[in-house]
């Protein structure tokens, strides 16, 4: 019998529908893999019973002829999504033990579509990080290792590092992620999987622990483009509870998948050619260009002149919003309370927040507080929002001459845990290619395209016009079909 955990979402869905296996068998297989992978530390909470319950319902639905789009598919849920009755921590000490009495819109949609939950996936604390090293619940270890005979633990990327590691290690066929400045795409690239951040507003933010409201966007992570399309169809949709939610119908992305790019033009942003970049990255990029040409696309060079300012603008805007979004963690209504002997209210706040937030979260709150403070607001925040306007205009101008943009997802392959932890700036620079699309709210995905000389996966990024997830998915599919990326991490855990 085939190992059910090697199946994609589409294969599980179709195989279950065809009666090749039961949903309970699938859930049990993934539950077993989850239980066997403690060494990866991908999950903060495991919920095998949730997966089994959903599987039983799926099997019953099959018998009754009432199958749903994701019946029989167990998934992982990033622990940034509030899940009713299941601890939700954002990987923080602050929210340790917090059990929401409500379900996020996106997770609710997935359960309504028949999916089951294998567990809550580890992440960078409050989604702040690019390596999953800021989690209060410990680092997630990438299943990948360098082909150098060593066993250095590698970063699975971040912030959705639990999601990426779990999918790469076959602990779940798909998972939710969130992307504020690359948190879906970069971990996908680091672990040889696929992930898409849709247009800002496609997925409701209601019930997702907020990091930076104007940037946060949920999206799926999975093993291939089709699975991303299937997942996204069941995550996206208008939500009146989110004032920034897009009131648009959800397209049938899966049905419209096509890798035929005849008549399409792909833009190659010249500013993304960074000096001194890893030659493997450049080589992958060139190969990607060739693949899209092979799929029938025309290729043009485009210019995104403000690219180099995207990251600094992001590191003003995101911390500013975060400093305010995280003010609610004060020890009054939920989560940690640290009340030193004799402390008053304000001392309680300061003690609670000192204890409940990790170093990176504090750093960003401090930066955000500073850039919004009296006398600095215009110089930092207003300036950054103006630069953001220019970055969005760059994309608009570029899209006048192309349909999608192709670039690397990250400037390097996965780095070793601890390698960048001491230098926040070096860590931030890892999102240099991911952040511009975030600032512009555009759909963007990462597709695994090659292995570098160390045997580690590299991802190509496709950035699309607003609302054009289809164009992004189709270009992704064209690369996927041609790259033939079948490598997977050898099991060591």
């Amino acid at each position, binding site marked *: 019998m085939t190992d059910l955990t090697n199946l994609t979402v589409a294969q599980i869905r179709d195989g279950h529908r065809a009666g090749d296996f039961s949903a309970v068998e699938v859930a049990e297989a993934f539950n077993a893999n989850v239980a066997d992978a403690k060494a990866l530390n991908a999950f903060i909470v495991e919920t095998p019973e949730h997966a089994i319950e959903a599987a039983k319902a799926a099997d019953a639905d099959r018998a009754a002829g009432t199958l749903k789009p994701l019946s029989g598919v167990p998934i992982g849920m990033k622990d940034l999504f509030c899940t009713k009755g299941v601890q939700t921590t954002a990987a923080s000490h602050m929210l340790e033990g917090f*059990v*929401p*009495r*409500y379900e996020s819109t996106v997770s609710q949609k997935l359960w309504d579509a028949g999916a089951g939950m294998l567990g809550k996936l580890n992440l960078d604390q409050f989604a702040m990080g690019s390596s999953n090293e800021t989690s209060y619940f410990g680092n997630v270890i990438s299943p990948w290792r360098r082909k150098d005979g060593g066993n250095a633990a590698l970063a699975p990327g971040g912030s959705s590092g639990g999601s990426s590691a779990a999918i790469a290690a076959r602990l779940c066929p798909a998972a939710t992620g969130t992307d504020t400045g690359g948190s879906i795409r970069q971990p996908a690239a680091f672990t040889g999987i696929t992930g898409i951040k849709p*247009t*800002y507003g496609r997925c409701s933010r*209601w019930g997702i622990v907020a990091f930076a409201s*104007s940037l946060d966007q949920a999206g799926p992570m999975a093993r291939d483009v089709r699975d991303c399309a299937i997942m996204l169809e069941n995550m996206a949709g208008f939500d*009146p*509870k989110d*004032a*920034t939610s*897009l*009131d648009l119908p959800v397209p049938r992305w899966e049905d419209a998948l096509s890798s035929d790019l005849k008549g399409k033009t792909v833009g190659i942003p010249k500013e993304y050619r960074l000096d001194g970049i890893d030659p493997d990255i450049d080589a992958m990029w060139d190969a990607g260009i060739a693949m899209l040409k092979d799929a029938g696309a025309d290729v043009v060079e485009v210019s995104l002149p403000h690219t180099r*300012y995207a990251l*600094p*603008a992001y*590191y*003003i805007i995101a911390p500013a919003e975060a400093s305010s979004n995280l003010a609610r963690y*004060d020890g*009054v*209504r*939920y*989560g*940690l*309370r640290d*009340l030193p002997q004799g*402390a*008053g*209210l304000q*001392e*309680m*706040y*300061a*003690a609670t*927040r*000192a204890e409940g*937030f990790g170093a990176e979260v*504090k*750093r960003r*709150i*401090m930066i955000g*507080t*500073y*850039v919004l*403070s009296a006398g600095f607001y215009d*110089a930092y925040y207003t*300036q*950054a*929002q*103006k*630069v*953001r*306007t*220019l970055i*969005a205009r760059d994309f608009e101008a570029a899209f006048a001459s192309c349909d999608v943009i192709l670039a690397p997802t990250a400037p390097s392959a996965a780095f070793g845990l601890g390698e960048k932890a001491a230098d*926040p*700036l070096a860590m*931030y620079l890892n999102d240099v290619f991911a952040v511009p699309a975030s*600032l512009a709210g555009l759909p963007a995905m990462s597709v695994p395209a090659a292995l570098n000389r160390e045997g580690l996966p590299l991802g190509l990024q496709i950035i699309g016009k607003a609302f054009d997830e289809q164009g992004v998915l189709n270009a992704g599919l064209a690369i996927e079909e041609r790259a033939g990326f079948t490598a997977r991490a050898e099991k060591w855990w």
Partner: protein
Amino acid sequence: MAIDQATVRKIASLARIAISDAEAAAMEGELNGILGWVEQLGEVDVSGVEPMTAVIPNTLRLRDDVVDADPLTGGNRRDDVLANAPAAQHGFFGVPKVIE
């Protein structure tokens, strides 16, 4: 514009994060590093450019004035609201005594 430790402590106080002297010293360097780096934004000519207000063209929708239309955004769920409170008493959230 470099910030000193006193500024670090002031920001920490505004953000209600207790910090030790050692932390303040460490943060001084880190924050200056980051702020020095983001200050390159000052080079960008933004004359005539409006700050971004909505990343994707969209208009603010307004809600109808109906009470508890959706339980997820309505009231009458005190137990849910208090369920995770560290010090709930008699239907209230408890906090250290405040003198106004």
